[in-house]
């Protein structure tokens, strides 16, 4: 059960700079923690995020273990035309 919250203004004027805020549910296990018996808890993080606007990449991020659980990213894009924003999160253990 992975959930994402994405907030984008529903409408914008041509040329407006709009803020996009995203939250993705994920534990972001760092790979630096140990169990009580001393075994390393394997890393399980989201490593890549991208936002495409009508197929064109407008923002991309590479994430490392220092990202908080349930990663939050807020960035901007210029409203150029009506269309679709596509978000992609990818990471360890085939998370995508």
């Amino acid at each position, binding site marked *: 059960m*992975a959930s*994402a*919250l994405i*907030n984008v203004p529903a409408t914008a004027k041509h040329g407006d700079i709009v803020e996009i805020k995203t939250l993705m549910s994920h534990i972001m296990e760092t790979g630096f923690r140990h169990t009580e018996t001393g075994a390393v808890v394997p890393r399980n993080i989201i490593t890549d995020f991208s936002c495409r606007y009508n197929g064109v990449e407008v923002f991309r991020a590479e994430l490392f273990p220092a990202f908080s659980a349930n990663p939050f990213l807020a960035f901007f894009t210029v409203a150029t035309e009506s269309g679709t*924003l*596509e*978000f*992609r*999160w990818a990471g360890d253990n085939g998370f*995508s």
Partner: protein
Amino acid sequence: MTMWRMIGVVGLVVASIARGDAAEIAPDQRRSGLSFMAPETQAMQSDDTANPAMLAVLDGEMLWKQKAGAANRACADCHGDATASMHGVAANYPAYDDLLARPVDLEQRINLCRVRHQQASPLADESRELNALGALVARQSRGTPIEAGGDVRLAPFVANGKGLFMRRQGQLNLACANCHDDNWDRRLAGSAITQAHPTGYPIYRLEWQGMGSLKRRLRSCMLGTRAAPYQADDPEMVELELYLMSRARGMSIEAPAVRP
């Protein structure tokens, strides 16, 4: 997985209704834990598009519509749209259950519903599913005043809860009241001591990096005093929850809240 979803932005309603009774803290001095937080943490809670607890509400919306149990029924099949049917409900919990003749908290109510009406097994204590449904239901009471403890049949349970709040426990031999009634304006090392008004549960706690119920928070506190924590279904647990909610009576629900 690619998801595309928008949610509305809902402002936080901060009401200041004071009509507490059992509270040891004077009614006009009562404060939500929100007011003890840094501005950045407050901002995380008050913006639904940035509040990580809203992920749990989103999960709750999915689970609400999911059929479960031998009855093959979803919450929505009986209760319809949660935003309408659950409005104000959480403000009354823990509430008296006629069959059990004792108070049950919100999570216990959800599980009773599963067992009695969906003929499904109860969800595990602190499971993602149970906290998600709890967050969805509690979200529908945001801005409404807490009413818990008003039912006269609850009076002896509230009194028991108050007794537990005042009772010293654990290796450090501390009562809840030693910190949360007597020293709420001070700091335990770097951390603010709050007033134990549970206005925002279930919460997203930064320390947990996830969701938890009031029961989880109480267990943390008890471990802090090096006491054996009550289990989720111990009668003491719901009595303590009930006392805490009743001392916050009249304060606004802000669920699902963010706390450090």
